[in-house]
């Protein structure tokens, strides 16, 4: 049997100490130990992107990261995106453009879109498609999502 270990991390800017089995999925620890249930589980095998979070600024599938690997890292989840009184421009754009329908893919889609814009502030349509290729949506048909990202870019350059 494995033993639980202590893992110190920063989650959405706050220092946290997790106590977990080393191969627990980061996804489960975020949801069940920290109550950060905005990060969703879709496929559980790295195909759908619903569980996307950022580790040290890099987009990852949290269902594929054993929690032992995030020791000392800085994690950002969907709960860390909006400030107390203001949505992030990508979130606002998803609302305005109808980028969210059932909502299960939305937190991951927003995280992936923000990660894309951090690396490439004015992406082409091909860049957007590539940046979101790891995030599946079964409702929107993607066009509203792509429009949301374009809209967010326009808002941020105003």
């Amino acid at each position, binding site marked *: *049997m*494995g*033993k639980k270990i202590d893992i110190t991390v920063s989650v959405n800017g706050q220092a946290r100490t997790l106590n977990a*089995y*080393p*191969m*627990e*999925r980061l996804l489960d620890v975020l949801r069940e130990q920290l109550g950060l249930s905005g990060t969703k589980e879709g496929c*559980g*095998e*790295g*195909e759908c*992107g619903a569980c*996307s979070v950022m580790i040290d600024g*890099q*987009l*990852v*599938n949290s*269902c*594929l*990261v*054993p929690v*032992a*690997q995030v*020791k000392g890292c800085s994690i950002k989840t969907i709960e860390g995106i909006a400030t107390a009184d203001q949505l992030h421009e990508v979130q606002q754009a998803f609302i305005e453009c109808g980028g969210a329908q059932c909502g299960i893919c939305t937190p991951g889609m927003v995280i*992936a879109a923000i*990660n*894309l814009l951090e690396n490439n502030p004015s992406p082409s349509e091909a860049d957007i498609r*590539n*940046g979101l*290729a*790891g*995030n599946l949506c079964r409702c929107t048909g993607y066009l509203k999502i792509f429009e949301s990202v374009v809209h967010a870019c326009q808002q941020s350059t105003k």
Partner: protein
Amino acid sequence: MRAFVPSYQMVSPSSLSEALEFLSRGNSTWKPFAGGTDLMVLLEAGKLPHKNYVNLWNLKELHGTEVSDDRVTLGALTTYSEVQRHPLIQTEFPMLCQAAKETGGIAIQNRGTLGGNIVNASPAADSLPALLAYDAVIELISKAGQRTIAYSEFHRGYKEMELRPDELLRAIHLPRTVKLLTHYYRKVGTRKAQAISKVCFAGTAAVTNGNIESVRIALGSVAPVPLRCQQTERALVGKQIKRETISAAQAELTEEISPISDIRSTEKYRLRVSLNLLEDFLLRLAET
């Protein structure tokens, strides 16, 4: 059924030598764990029978790239994202860049590693035909010492490798010796992103006045291992690219590969596509 996670152990050594110490404890008690993009999928599916893992992710000795006059060395934990960003890999080893770009989405590319891809030994892995066509050399390390072998000799059978349980893949060396004029990489899958390939083709060649001076061809998903197709290469070296040359090479390739029907494709389709890709590659060479 999902695995019972408390039954798994993972240690996180702080140095490569400490990691090798764990691997050297007989009976394969400890196995290496890199980016997790394959092993975590197996864990979730309840198909990860081995329980004890050595976490390599934070070992700086396995990260990073080095460039010298005659080769580029990639640490085993070089991720697909790092491969794509490397300016020299972009210019000299474009097929590897393309393979990295077409493997999974960005979240996978940030976590999946070249070394993990090699040691996971899936015949459908996308970067492996590119490494074979670039004549990669791999460096293995253990407590007992280190050795280098040609990558083309590494895969011996389905998921069987020239790798002892106490050894770790430390680095991949790509020789810069040959000026290869044409690089041709094609992954054929169900969908452009995320999908695992049905057939993957990597070819490089030097052609002068329509004459093939040297050629290297490797395919994925058409044999129990990622396959360097030397029989087909021999049929091409020294030949002019003409219809007969293409047909002769296709006949050799038909003998050399052994595709199967499985969840992703059929034997017939894979054979047809492999032959078409070979033809497309050779026609591309004829244009140079």
